[in-house]
């Protein structure tokens, strides 16, 4: 369970969520994105292709992250949600709050 950050050749900061995004590690993700924004990143993609499950704290962390990026004048995209993960966003109506793409490639192309 952890997060890794890379930079796409197009200049987008790509954060990979590996394992779970839950109450025990959501602060780590928030800190990582906060540091990226503080370091000047304005286009950020969070990819869930390797994610198992997300709890409401994880969803809440994404809401906070989204606000922070918006306030900095940046853009956030999400990608790689499988059917189960996507259902969490739909049930909570958060699919209306986030720009969600099917694959990382589609998300990168949408910036």
């Amino acid at each position, binding site marked *: 369970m952890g997060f890794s950050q890379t930079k796409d050749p197009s200049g987008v900061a790509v954060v990979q969520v590996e394992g779970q995004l*839950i*109450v025990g590690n959501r602060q780590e993700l928030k800190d990582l994105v906060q540091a990226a924004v503080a370091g000047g990143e304005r286009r950020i993609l969070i990819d869930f292709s390797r994610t198992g499950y997300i709890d*409401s704290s994880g969803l809440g962390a994404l809401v906070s992250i989204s606000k922070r990026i918006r306030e900095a004048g940046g853009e956030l995209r999400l990608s790689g949600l499988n059917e189960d993960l996507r259902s969490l966003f739909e049930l909570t109506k958060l699919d209306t*709050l986030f720009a969600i793409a099917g694959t990382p490639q589609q998300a990168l192309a949408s910036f």
Partner: protein
Amino acid sequence: MPSPLRLCVRRSPAPGAGGAATLVTLQLPSEVACIEEAVELVTRHCLAGHASCRRTRFRLQVVLSEALSNAIVRGNGEDGRKSVHVRAELLADAIRLVVTDEGPGFDPTAVPEPIRPDQLDEANGRGLYLIRKLVDAVQFNEQGNSICMTLRRP
């Protein structure tokens, strides 16, 4: 370092369950770092001997993680002297999960609906809503420190 989780599995008729069942109990400390391991342990026992169902596994993982998080953070206030108790009754057609904390309890009817437009941008308040959406039945005890979640097997 040994795991701080205390697991007990008993294959016998569960009292009042109306048929043979496996009873799994787990006690864990009030530490959020224990949640992932506890979820995996209980989920594995809940699904053992049954046809693999991705959707059921996912739902179990999410609702257990939610209930444990609520119990540890809100119920027990992450107080190291308090524990969280999980009881899983594994029936032929359903899984009944009871998660109990040692806190004062809360009023589940006082939680606002998180999908209201004015609540959508809030970082908190989706846990109980998600649980209600992902299982077939939810009940609380009178004190409000114990949640019972029933998930029918596919």
